[in-house]
């Protein structure tokens, strides 16, 4: 029986307090005062939905082997590329086989659950990874800005080592244009909130849940946890009443800690439920967006075998406050700031070069010398070890999953950075290998020579003139 075999979560490091937004924008839209509680997760300037999806996918490798993955689905409404495979970028950065079948699910906020249903319906697929990720943007001062947050989740689906097996699913599709964006839109638009709630949220989620219960012949009282995404805190609570659910059966909405993470959100809540679940528990997860999907799982004994169950908890705890609202606007590309002429210099990206060097650029794969065993990056024909120097004795060696130690570092105020000063340093990898990386999700004051770091796939630059994002790996403080 197909089911979930592993999961991973990625929440970006920064949190923005809603009070910070209110203080900055409350003069314009005083109505957002009611939402000004808690905080939301914010992607760093060097992150987008693809990089977060990859980070969540990497988080699964504690429990599954990347070699077994033969299908990869990305689900998001904010994928950065319209014509360049976002899932192919992820496939490369995750160092999956090029023989992996990839697809992207998009268009509405239920795309995450739709990808999951699709994966669960493919008995011939050995192991499918679904990674749902979103960073939706609301205009300054709006309700969407208060509510939406950034995050990603990855779920592995297979037939072996299933921790939660699928009992059934039920899907609804409606052209309910509550939230919308067209091709050229940077920001999410919405119709009146009361209409979305009364005509959509309160109707479609119950319709999907009841459809699923009827299909499976199960009463709602038999369910251990019911998961559905929040519209707002109050609406989430009110829907529980309409579903006649005891409060302890309702999975917490996470609005106050991360915000609404779009197509990732119901699945992040599913991970939260799985972290606490006992074998035998029945978990129902429903999404909302142009309809609704509902899926019912039963937790198995194998959930106890997971190496790390508390991945969401760790991500919720690992954070730093973004205190400055203007900086948030800048990170989100909403601020025309003086970059200086140095900042405006953009060398064209050579796509033929990036393709030729894809092992180095996309996968962070270097080599290990078969003659002397020295790991080295990037791959060259002659071994870097001066006592070896062997020619053409290299075999692929992945660095993206290796822990490193910060050999030295600096904070450079001259180099252009979207978050100056530019932090970079030299990393010595455990097991050997040394290379130079930008440092991210940290501050100079927290850095120390020798501290452990891990690798993270980030957007290094965005060349809007030529429509290309340059991705590469950076080092960040060891998160585990």
């Amino acid at each position: 029986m197909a089911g979930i075999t592993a999961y991973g979560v990625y929440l970006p490091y920064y949190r923005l307090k809603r009070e910070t937004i209110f203080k900055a924008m409350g003069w314009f839209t005083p109505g957002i005062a009611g939402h000004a509680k808690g905080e939301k997760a914010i992607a760093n300037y060097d992150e987008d939905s693809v990089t977060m999806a990859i980070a969540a996918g990497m988080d699964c490798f504690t429990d599954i082997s990347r070699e077994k993955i033969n299908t990869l689905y990305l689900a998001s409404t904010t994928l950065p590329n319209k014509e360049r495979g976002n899932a192919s970028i992820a496939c490369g950065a995750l160092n999956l086989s090029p023989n992996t079948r990839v697809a992207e699910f998009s268009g509405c906020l239920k795309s995450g659950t739709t990808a999951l249903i699709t994966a669960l319906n493919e008995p011939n697929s050995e192991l499918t990874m679904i990674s749902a990720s979103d960073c939706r943007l609301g205009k300054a001062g709006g309700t969407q800005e208060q509510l939406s947050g950034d995050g990603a989740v990855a779920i592995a689906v297979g037939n072996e080592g299933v921790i939660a097996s699928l009992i059934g699913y039920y899907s609804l599709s409606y052209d309910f244009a509550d939230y919308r964006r067209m091709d050229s839109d940077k920001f999410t638009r919405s119709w009146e909130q009361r209409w979305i709630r009364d005509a959509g949220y309160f109707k479609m989620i119950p319709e999907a849940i009841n459809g699923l219960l009827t299909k499976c012949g199960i009463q709602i009282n038999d369910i251990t946890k019911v998961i559905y995404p929040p519209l707002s805190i109050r609406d989430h609570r009110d829907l529980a009443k309409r579903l006649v659910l005891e409060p302890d059966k309702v999975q917490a909405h996470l609005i106050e800690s991360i915000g609404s993470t779009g197509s990732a959100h119901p699945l992040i809540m599913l991970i939260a439920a799985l972290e606490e679940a006992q074998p035998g528990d029945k978990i129902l997860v429903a999404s909302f967006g142009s309809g609704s999907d509902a899926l019912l799982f039963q937790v198995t004994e194998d959930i106890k075998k997971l190496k790390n169950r508390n991945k969401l908890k760790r991500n919720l705890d690992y954070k730093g406050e973004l205190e400055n609202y203007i900086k948030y606007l800048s990170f989100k590309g909403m601020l025309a700031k003086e970059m200086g002429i140095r900042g405006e210099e953009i060398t064209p990206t050579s796509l033929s070069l990036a393709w030729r060097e894809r092992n180095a650029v996309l996968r962070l794969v270097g080599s290990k010398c078969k003659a002397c065993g020295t790991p080295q990056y990037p791959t060259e024909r002659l071994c870097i070890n001066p006592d070896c120097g062997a020619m053409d004795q290299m075999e692929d060696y992945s660095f993206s999953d290796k822990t490193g130690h910060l050999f030295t570092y600096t904070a450079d105020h001259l180099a252009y950075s979207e978050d100056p000063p530019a932090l970079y340093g030299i990393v010595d990898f455990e097991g050997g290998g040394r290379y130079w990386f930008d440092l991210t999700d940290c501050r100079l004051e927290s850095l120390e020579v020798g501290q452990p770091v891990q690798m993270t796939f980030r957007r290094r630059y965005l060349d809007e003139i030529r429509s290309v994002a340059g991705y590469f790996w950076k080092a960040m403080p060891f998160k585990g």
Partner: protein
Amino acid sequence: MAEGIKNKVAIIGMGCTKFGEHWDRSAESLIVEAFEEAITDAGIEKKDIDAAWHSTCFDEVNVGKSAIPLAAALKLPYIPVTRVENFCASGTEAVRAASYAVASGSCDIALALGVEKLKDIGYGGLPDFSQLRGIYNRQIFPNVTAPGQFAMLATRYFNRYGLSPEEGKRTLAKISAKSHANGALTPKAHLRRKVDVETIMNAPIIAWPLGLFDCCGVTEGAAAAIIVRADEAKAFRSDPVYVKALQIAVSPEEEYRYNKWDGTHVETTYRCGVRAYEEAGIKNPREEISMMEVHDCFSITELVIYEDLQISLRGRAKEDVDSGFFELNGKMPCQSDGGLKSFGHPIGASGIRMIYEEYKQLQGKCGERQIKNPRLGLTHNLGGFPANCVIGISIWGNEL
């Protein structure tokens, strides 16, 4: 070891423009000025020159590619002219090439001339162009600057030798203060004012832990040398300056990608120094060398150069800094003209500018900054970064 270049050639004339932000002057104008001073100093004419080497690095900015800009500026009559580029060590490369050509007998009088125009880009610091590995660098290397690269040397040095940021920065500040004091005595320097240690330590950070005064300036200028065989030099002037060593060493990037390098020194400087001392027959550099002009692109660079050139013991250059060993009235004056710190660093010209100072010191022509009875002067030119660089070292003497 090969016989080497020692005592085979001599410099008979040199020229150097004032270094600075020459908003109103072209590269061509700077070339002509350095050249005219050099041939006047040598007492020769343009037609006497058999071959020339032209050093410049950031050709994109102003000077342009190839050796044609030099031949065209000086209207050299169809002689062989070669452009050399080896990062910031380009100037030493030009002198080396000219020296080897003269020593081989393939020409009698050779010109080495370096020039750099850097200020026509619209922003401070060096031009932000792809360097090592061209456009590949943009894909897989941090967007580093020169201050950042050398700052990482300081981070590691402070950590290894247990210096607090305050102690480390104070040592570095003394190095910069010394050079600024010397620069104030040098008419051709770009920055000509004394700066005290406290000002240096409290200056804005450029790349932590390096502050504004730990960094040399971005400057424009040109410098030139006329080279002949040593045994013919006295026919041109009574006080030629003889070559004792001319060495280049280039890092194979072990430091950069192999885990062995300790990050507190520049291995290529050490290797180049060993070869230069051997070529010059120097056994004890701390005792035998009279003075040095080294590549103080940053204060930390100068600190580790003291150790890499075996003047100071590893980890103990601070003691020599504190005792005034490298000051103008010290045992081994370093940067008697103010160094890159005061002159700034027009890439292609700097290596020749360093030799210009040693040449003038060895001739006793340095006025109020004249070092007493110098015998051997060393120049050290660094192109690139601590972990992967080109080092050019030359040693000159006023006796055969």
